[in-house]
């Protein structure tokens, strides 16, 4: 093997490094220029939505693409709090659907022109593995120290709702874990690692067969309103409003109700 390396072996990493830093500075400029691009007819809508909306919104996305040929809907599902932070930091989202008004507020604080509308409400249920090993059948069973319970962290909407519901019931529950989002909490139940968890009714329906849901009266004290908004600087412009329109339409309501959400 020759000792001499061809020049490009050195030039390549340098060019890459320079190219990358060039890209870095080009991105903000590009996103600032997108409203002009939207006028030319951007055909992509980027929707940031709470993890609990995964099933229903994926279905609505298909409806939207069918009704607007040539468009595609891209989803970013995750914890509402994370998504809100990403949008506040300038992530290129067109529509934001959050699982709580508090997380939506992060976005409206950053850009006050946003006008969110409540489109559905969601309630908590107790989720237990399908064989219910700890024989949980009401909320106060969760306070039993022998029952392993997973809750969402208080910083995310499902955790805030869980605290509210447990407070309303006057119960002291010591969970074994505080999960980052509702899907992670549900996974712990599906795998049988915990005996019970507080998740949304919609998540129990989505995981039908793998977990059992138990309704409890205190859930009414901790109902989550879901707000949705087209973002003021939406790169997709009009299309963003149209997607929000679909979610608020009778057709949207139909899909969401089937997933277990309640009308506001």
């Amino acid at each position, binding site marked *: 093997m020759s000792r001499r390396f061809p020049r490009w072996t050195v030039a390549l990493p340098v060019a890459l490094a320079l190219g990358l830093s060039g890209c870095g500075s080009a991105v903000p400029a590009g996103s600032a220029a997108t409203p002009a691009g939207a006028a030319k007819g951007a055909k992509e809508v980027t929707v940031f939505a709470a993890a609990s909306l995964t099933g229903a919104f994926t279905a609505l996305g298909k409806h939207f693409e069918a009704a607007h040929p040539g468009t595609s809907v891209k989803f970013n599902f995750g914890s509402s709090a*994370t998504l809100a932070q990403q949008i506040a930091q300038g992530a290129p989202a067109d529509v934001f659907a959050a699982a709580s008004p508090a997380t939506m507020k992060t976005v409206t604080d950053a850009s006050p022109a946003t006008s969110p509308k409540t489109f559905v409400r969601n309630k908590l249920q107790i989720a237990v593995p399908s064989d219910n090993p700890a024989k949980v059948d009401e909320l106060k069973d969760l306070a039993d120290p022998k029952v392993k319970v*997973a809750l969402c962290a208080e910083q995310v909407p499902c955790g805030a709702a869980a605290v509210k519901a447990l407070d309303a019931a006057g119960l002291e529950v010591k969970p074994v874990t505080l999960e*980052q989002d509702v899907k992670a909490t549900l996974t*712990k139940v599906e795998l049988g690692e915990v005996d019970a968890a507080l998740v949304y009714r919609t998540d129990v329906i989505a995981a039908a067969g793998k977990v059992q849901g138990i309704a409890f009266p205190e859930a009414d004290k901790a109902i989550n309103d879901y707000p949705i908004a087209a973002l003021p600087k939406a790169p997709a412009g009009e299309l963003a409003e149209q997607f929000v329109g679909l979610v608020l339409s009778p057709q949207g309501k139909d899909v969401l109700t089937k997933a277990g959400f309640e009308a506001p």
Partner: protein
Amino acid sequence: MGAVTEQNRTASARPPWMLVVPALAGLAFLVLPLAGLLVRAPWSTLPERLAEPYVLEALRLSLVTATVATAMSLLLGVPLAWLLARVEFPGRRLVRALVTVPLVLPPVVGGVALLLVLGRRGLVGQWLESAFGITLPFTTAGVIVAEAFVAMPFLVISVEGALRAADRRYEEAAATLGASRWTVFRRVTLPMVMPGVVAGAVLCWARALGEFGATITFAGNFPGTTRTMPLAVYLALETEPEAAIVLSLVLLTVSMIILAGLRDRWVSAP
């Protein structure tokens, strides 16, 4: 005379730009994110944020679990590295490849795999619970297991490399003089590859300290028992990015101090 030689050496040793330019680009690439943290840190509220009890709690948990995970990796990983480097057995190449699996596996997937084996309904976990009443998920021991799983390959690879590079004639000489294989390992091999073991342990410890995905998946996230610094950073990012920056800085500072201390003590020792 001595000074002149020194000067000549320096002049002739001027590093070529073909190496210096990419080296500086590489350095900038690695250091700029750190600068970003420092620039955005909330310096005015820093003291009161540091005084929050959960910071110390998470830091303590991180240091303890990373250290125990490293000890566990040393205990199991050094013999494994020796086996791979010194013993001929069929399928050795396959075993060597398997050891690196946790390196290529996304940590979250590693966490799921650990749950499926050591979880309450896992292959081994089921038996652990019924026979000994031990459950690993959601415990500090679970954090250690997750960290060791992800970090041990760094140690094994580093020690195996050192073993392969070491001169085997010393071991052979010791054996000729009547030392048993265990004595040879303890008195000749191990001292010879000590720098490799230390470097591997440092890598392993650093990786364990930063471990996130396998920990949150396998051990969960609860303050005091399983919420290590990286988990606390992730959670803080949800609502208070500034608190996340503070936590990151704390983790960074402490690990730099410890690693720099070890470096002076061990790695660059002649």
